């Protein structure tokens, strides 16, 4: 039987992807217009990491899942109402900005410090999970830096699967170019895994799991320490929305052969 894991999932919150975003500039750099008003969701890839963590914890009895999240406390609370219903975890909250314009180093530092405060954390059992990139900064930097700060130098990115073996070693599938996976084996914890989507479907909401989680989530939010996370040394010269609008030609009532001909010609043109 495998040794239990302590799985720390780092997951931020991001504006609901269906919302229209607009950048504005302030003295502290760029931010989103009405940022505090925008509904937020758990960062999608981090969400996959959380579900995979819960799945792994179920498969290896005695394992525990922590969700470490940096975001404005009030927003975190809102998002946790939904996330808490998905899988069992203990929340470690850090009160600070969730903006994509903060620097990955500063976010990583705040998260690493929060991880260090988890009571009884045993590095020999530690797996640090998270999304391989976020839906805000999209850098794929935070987890690597957290790993380095905690001295964890077996790292994997774009992970789609972990399979733990009897001897506590595990096999990992990482996405690489051309729709392929690199297969590695790692001797065991500690390791950093930045998740892609994995293979699991999103768990259904379970109000009972939600109630159990909320008992620890509320105190965790109350205890959340404020962290100063900005972007020192970084100057945004310009932030803008791309020119999105295209002059769409809507073609109705054209016969399938004609459309096929037009598309074939279009494909053939350089």
């Amino acid at each position, binding site marked *: 039987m495998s040794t239990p894991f302590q799985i720390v999932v780092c997951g931020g919150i991001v*504006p609901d992807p269906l919302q229209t975003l607009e950048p504005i500039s302030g003295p502290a750099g760029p931010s989103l217009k009405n940022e505090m008003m925008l509904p937020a969701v758990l960062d999608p890839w981090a969400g996959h990491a959380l579900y995979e963590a819960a799945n792994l914890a179920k498969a290896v009895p005695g394992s525990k899942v922590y969700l470490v999240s940096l975001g404005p406390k009030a927003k975190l609370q809102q998002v946790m109402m939904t996330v808490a219903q998905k899988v069992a975890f203990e929340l470690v909250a850090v009160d600070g900005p969730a903006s994509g314009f903060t620097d990955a180093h500063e976010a990583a530092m705040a998260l690493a410090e929060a991880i260090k405060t988890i009571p009884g954390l045993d590095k020999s059992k530690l797996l640090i999970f998270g999304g391989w990139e976020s*839906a805000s900064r999209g850098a*794929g*930097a935070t987890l690597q830096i957290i*790993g380095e700060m905690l001295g964890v130098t077996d790292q994997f990115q774009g992970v789609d699967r972990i399979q733990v073996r009897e001897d506590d070693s595990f096999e990992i599938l990482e996405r690489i170019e051309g729709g392929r996976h690199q297969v590695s084996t790692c001797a065991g914890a500690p390791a950093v895994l930045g998740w892609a989507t994995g293979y699991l479907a999103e768990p259904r909401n379970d109000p009972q799991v939600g109630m159990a989680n909320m008992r620890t989530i509320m105190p965790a939010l109350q205890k959340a320490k404020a962290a100063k996370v900005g972007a020192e040394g*970084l100057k945004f*010269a310009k932030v803008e929305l*791309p020119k999105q609008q295209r002059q769409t030609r809507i073609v*109705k009532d054209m016969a399938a052969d004609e459309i096929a001909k037009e*598309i074939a010609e279009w494909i053939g043109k350089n």
Partner: protein
Amino acid sequence: METILFLAHTEADGTLPKVALEALGAAQELAASIAGSPLVVGLFGGEVKLAADAIAECGAQQILAVAGAEYAQSRYSTDAAAVEMLCRASKATIVIAPATSRCARVISGVSHRINGRVDTHVNSITVTNDTPAATRWFYRQRMVADLERTQRPWLMLIDSGCHAAYEGAPGMANVENVQIVLGEVHKRTNVTGIQAPKSDEQTIRPDADLLFVAGAGWTKKQKDGQAHPKEAETHILGFLKLTQASLGSSKSLVDLSGEGQDVLQFMSHLNQVGQTGSTPRHAKGLSTCCHGEEPHVVGWRFINERRAINLDANCGWARGKADVVYVADAFEVLTKLNALLAEKKLVTA
């Protein structure tokens, strides 16, 4: 003045990937735009001589390398050690590397080791009064920013397809090897292989001119009240074979496959484009049976010319996102289109 390190790994055959040559192009240009800035090359991998010779004439002041069997595999511990040493040995203030999965896995970790800062997915670098600025996207390709940093070293990962590739004649490189003492701690992970789709199922082709995106519509009930997944499969695979296009998918379609429904067998979550998928770069894109909501559309950000086929004129693509939307049945159009393409192929063959 900056010291610019172009950093890259070699492939299994000892050559440099194309995106590395693009990053070298960007590094060269950067060195030329900031007065008095030397360019240094840093290579790592199993073998580096072939690659070093191929870029021997790029104007680098020095070519450094970490090479050997231990660096043939793409593994965090050894790659990070190699990249760290190359950065230190070069005394680089700016490091330019290609956004391969291998470089992307280590560059940020190394930025912390050398007390630097990192920017990934950089699209372009411009220089004004000797000050470099990088362009990159935020919020999953929904807004673009130009940024400058005062901290050094500044490490940048350049996305593929963003800069012209370096094209110099090969020469005889003078490679200086940087030695690293590896310990057991570096060898806890072993790369055991690559899992690739069978060659006839290979549908992701990053270098293709055309991206073909299939949506959940292919699996929906059609005019006759039935779903036709087998026909959809034939149409899509036929099209891919004829055009060598890369295949993308909407999230909805991938999720359907994940739920074990009888849908397109060759479609995997690796095909998904969009908010939680990829944002590939191709000259053209043809979207079929896709609705094109915002999270889906971000996957098309870097597709230059976009066309769509949808039964519904109110499809999300109809609102200023595609250049042309054909309001038509994709099954019918693809039948004709594949026949036409096959005919053309016969004529040209």
